[in-house]
């Protein structure tokens, strides 16, 4: 077991759009891998293993599409491992790559993937199939409906309003307008969100993420390799994962362990990554956050779970005060976040990549000034499997 730290030395992201009619699936993966390798200043011979980021096959419509990805990541003759943790896939892939390096078995590991959700255009049909066939499949479940019910409970406990939800969209769209990679970049107002059609009450069209097409890639390396080769890096100083029950109905009722209004296991995951990074007061120690929130309401329980506020529900007033805006005390989702770009297989990797760029000081127009320590998270399953990282300059 090596005691070296693990660094991020290369980052690549494609632009994210509804469709990319000029690129096949593996071509899209390559479009992210090439700039990541160039950023790392390495050629493919230096990569010793690949962790492949790919969520449910039905979203790209190719069975075990990682097979098509092998060529795009230069995986021939190399250890190659696919990760699928639903929406958390991208961050779980980065964490798996971290494990590869931290174990001491590999010095340089590439993680990459892509999604073409826009070619499916019917993600809720795919996501209805994640419910168990014994009991819940006959119900009209999908991730929108599931998280609308989280919103209803959050409203009940903490007084969140539909206007509070709209404020999240307004903030994140403003951020996305500064990020050339983001998918939905047009600024909107609270009135625009409130006037958009109701999808699943209280979630309206502008409270929802888009179905995006794009790719992402990152190169991780051991501290020894980075020093020996005089490379520039930012450091992954904490990682965490946690899961909770599949049964949504167990996250309500009498004394649930995990409350569906919140994100119980996400909180546990953050506790693990904070402990590893030596963070005792995240509200003051964290400078920037990229939190996986595909619907506006869910950003509140993610901020709560990351303990960026003193207690659950405090996120509502703090967001209203502008604290989580770029230029505010602790920018949340300065890239525009999942709400503005969701290519599911790599969405949670983009959260990590964006935080790495922030603490590196390379985020461009959406840079959070002075950020040296950031956090990222990913949510998968039916609000059930969570991953978190801490990244420091």
């Amino acid at each position, binding site marked *: 077991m090596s005691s070296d730290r693990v660094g991020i030395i290369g980052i690549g992201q494609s632009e994210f759009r509804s469709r990319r*009619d*000029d690129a096949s699936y593996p071509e899209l993966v390559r479009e992210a891998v090439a700039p990541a390798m160039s950023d790392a200043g390495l050629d493919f011979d230096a990569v010793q293993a690949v962790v492949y980021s790919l969520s449910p096959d*039905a979203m790209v*419509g190719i069975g075990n599409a990682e097979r098509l990805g092998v060529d795009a990541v230069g995986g021939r003759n190399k250890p190659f491992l696919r990760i699928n943790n639903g929406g958390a896939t991208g961050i779980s892939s980065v964490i798996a790559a971290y494990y590869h390096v931290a174990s001491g078995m590999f010095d340089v590991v590439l993680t990459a993937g892509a999604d073409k959700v826009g070619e499916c255009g*019917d993600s*809720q*049909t795919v996501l*209805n199939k994640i419910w168990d*066939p*014994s*009991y*819940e499949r*006959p*119900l*009209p*479940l*999908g991730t929108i*409906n599931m998280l*609308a*019910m*989280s919103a*209803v*409970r959050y409203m*009940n406990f903490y007084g969140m309003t539909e206007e509070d939800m709209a404020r999240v969209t307004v903030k994140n769209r403003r951020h996305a307008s500064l990020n050339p990679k983001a998918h939905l970049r047009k600024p909107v107002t609270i009135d625009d969100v409130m006037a958009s*059609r*109701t*999808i*699943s*009450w*209280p*979630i309206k069209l502008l409270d929802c993420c888009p179905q995006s097409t794009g790719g992402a890639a990152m190169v991780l390396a051991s501290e020894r390799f980075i020093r020996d080769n005089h490379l520039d890096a930012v450091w992954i100083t904490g990682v965490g994962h946690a899961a909770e*029950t*599949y*049964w*949504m*109905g*167990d996250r*309500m*009722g*009498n*004394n*649930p*362990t995990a409350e*569906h209004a919140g994100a119980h296991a996400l909180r546990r995951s953050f506790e693990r990554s904070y402990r590893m990074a030596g963070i005792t007061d995240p509200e003051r120690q964290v400078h920037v956050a990229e939190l996986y929130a595909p619907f506006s309401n869910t950003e509140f329980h993610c901020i709560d779970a990351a303990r960026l506020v003193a207690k659950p529900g405090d996120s509502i007033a703090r967001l209203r005060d502008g604290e989580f805006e770029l230029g505010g005390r602790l920018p949340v989702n300065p890239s525009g976040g999942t709400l503005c770009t969701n290519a599911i297989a790599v969405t949670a990797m983009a959260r990590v990549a964006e935080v790495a760029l922030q603490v590196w000081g390379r985020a461009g127009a959406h840079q959070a000034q002075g950020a040296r320590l950031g956090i990222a998270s990913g949510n998968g399953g039916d609000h059930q499997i969570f991953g978190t990282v801490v990244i420091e300059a």
Partner: protein
Amino acid sequence: MELLERQEVWNITYHHALGETASEFYTRIRDEGAIYGRRSAGSGRVLVPPRSFSDETLLPTTEWVKVGPGGQIEAFTIVYERFNNLPDPPYAFGYVLLDGADTALGGYFKGIDLTDPQAAADKLKVGTRVTTTFAADRKGEMLDFWFELTQ
């Protein structure tokens, strides 16, 4: 240049075995018009829908417990958007803690005017009392029952 595309359709039929516990649950719904949960040996919690084991104690559940038909709304949503392979909107559904249960069961809410989202949402607030209604002709499936506001 001209960029081309091709259409692909996935249409796969599965015959899922429901297992002993779910089979018994549906048989009782069909034959008795009643909802049953399973009591967890370790904690005493009544799990609905019934599971053969508790994810918290990891012990088998030990007995069938009749729950409902009354209960309270724990969560809901009202869907106004048309999704492929789902019912025609609008419809309301969510989760209900049935009397005697410790966990909530999913189902449709019926008999509520859904024309105005806010007015309908006000009727379905968390904590609102509901009653389980069973279809006269029951097939032994989730759609044999739904929830209506208690008068």
